[in-house]
């Protein structure tokens, strides 16, 4: 059914359909609408879920861990400082091989307090063992949450999944969304290592130097295996519900000389810039990276690449740009734009492409020569 919804409402709607046994969450702008909506579903009897209004994000993730290890489906949502406050526990969730699904509404980090979009929050979590996807429309948000449960819980994966949506830009925008009849798209959860008094075992005990690395490797092996599971899941989603996704969303890339790469809503707005550039005779294309973990295989050789990072690694560079460099070996133009909700328009993006200086870095709105 088609309706108008915000990104946050779309998350809640998808979670309702996936019916987790436990949701544990803590309010934080701009995510709060998700947990408010879920609380309303639960108290209105529309969701047979236990909603735990915990006292901090650290506790939110810890409660999800405790719930998940009993073998029930679990969900939480957070943003920015909330995500970083759970950082210890996000590592734990992945290491404990728990298929928790989390919506993270991307927001900048303080100080000063700033509630607007930035990707540094999630990118600081990229080494935790969570799968990460960045979405760009309300429809894609809804679809990604549904698929996230299936991917996380797949027994070849058993890793948590973080669905990232841009604060306000996507969390609060109202767009059409087509909800689906889920049917058996997400199979019943089966956690092979679920805690069970009939089969006593120690979970996460002291593990020596001759063993620990093996568990770490298992995380990586599942991360690699998840590629196949993601492909299968997205394929079946397309067959059932008619919407096709991939590791990246490529727009007019085939014959392009120059490709703009970005995450989230910037990646979508870049398509408008591409159309403008094409009208000027510039053979431009755009590539929106959706899955950042596992990192996609990118074919970029022989093209000019402009990467827009709404994030930064101080003393190093734009995080996405440098990941692409490391994985593909190409030289690119790295643009830092949109930090803390800084306004970036399609005209600005077209401008980045026109004035690109390959191999260099450019901070939008800052005079770096001063």
């Amino acid at each position, binding site marked *: 059914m088609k309706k*108008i919804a915000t990104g946050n409402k779309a998350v809640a709607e998808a979670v309702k359909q996936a019916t987790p046994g436990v949701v544990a969450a803590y309010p934080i702008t701009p995510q709060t609408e998700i947990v408010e909506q879920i609380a309303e579903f639960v108290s209105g009897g529309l969701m047979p879920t236990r909603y735990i209004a915990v006292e901090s994000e650290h506790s939110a993730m810890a409660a999800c861990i405790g719930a998940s290890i009993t073998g029930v489906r679990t969900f939480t949502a957070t943003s920015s400082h909330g995500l970083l406050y759970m950082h210890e526990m996000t590592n734990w969730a992945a290491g404990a091989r728990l298929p928790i699904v989390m919506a993270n509404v991307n927001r900048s980090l303080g100080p000063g307090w700033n*509630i607007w979009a930035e990707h540094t929050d999630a990118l600081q979590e990229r080494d935790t063992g969570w799968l990460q996807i960045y979405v760009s429309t309300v429809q894609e948000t809804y679809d990604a949450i549904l698929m996230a449960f299936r991917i996380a819980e797949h027994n070849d994966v058993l890793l948590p999944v973080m669905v990232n949506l841009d604060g306000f830009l996507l969390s609060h925008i*109202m767009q*059409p969304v087509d909800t689906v009849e889920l049917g058996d798209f997400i199979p019943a959860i089966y956690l092979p290592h679920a805690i069970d008094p009939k089969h006593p075992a120690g979970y996460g005990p002291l593990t020596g130097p001759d063993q620990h690395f093996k568990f770490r490797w298992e995380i990586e092996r599942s991360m690699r295996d998840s590629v196949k599971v993601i492909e299968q899941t997205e394929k079946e989603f397309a067959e059932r519900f008619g919407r096709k996704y991939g590791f990246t969303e490529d727009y007019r890339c085939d014959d392009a000389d120059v490709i703009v790469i970005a995450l989230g809503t910037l990646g979508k*707005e870049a398509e*408008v810039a591409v159309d403008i550039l094409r009208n000027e005779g510039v053979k431009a294309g755009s590539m929106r990276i959706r899955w950042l973990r596992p990192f996609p295989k990118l074919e970029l050789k022989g093209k000019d690449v402009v990467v827009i990072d709404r994030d930064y690694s101080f003393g190093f560079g734009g995080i996405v740009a440098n990941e692409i460099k490391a994985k593909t070996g190409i030289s690119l133009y790295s643009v830092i734009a949109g930090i803390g909700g800084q306004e970036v328009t*399609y005209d600005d993006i077209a401008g980045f492409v026109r004035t690109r200086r390959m191999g260099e870095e450019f901070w939008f709105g800052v005079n770096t020569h001063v």
Partner: protein
Amino acid sequence: MFEIRIHSRGGQGGVTAARLLAMAALHDGKYATACPFYGAERRGAPIVSFVRIDDRPIKIYSRIRQPDMVVVLDTSVMDTVDVLHGLKKGGRIIINSAGKREFPGFECRNVDLTGIALRKNLVVAGSPILNTPVIGALAKMGIITADSAKKAIREMFSDERNVNAADAAYKEMSA
């Protein structure tokens, strides 16, 4: 693409109006996005919402810089905000006002939405509700069809007074 900017104060229903407008456009078979621009301010602060309507999917997330139309739900925001900012030449304006205001170079329509809300007894916590009457005015301007406007309002509100208020605005808006 048709771009509309709505000016109101937090709590007056500007965001809901944007939503209703997008819903109605959807019923008209169009694509629409509505996004409020939130500051960190509290209730009562001036706030803008953006609505885009098009025949194709809309990929733009940045703010509207050159609207085709501006809607002012509360004229008091005009003291601190330049509501005409970026409005296209010959662009249209709807103002919630009992009196008649003119803006040279633009097509301005006045409609007393507050009066309509009060007359239809559409008052919540002491404030008149403006979000449904303004949808009637927008239908009169041809931005959405009257049928879709009603359908959208009914989807969101069970109280028929909302539809009546939209009707009244449709009928009363100055030519």
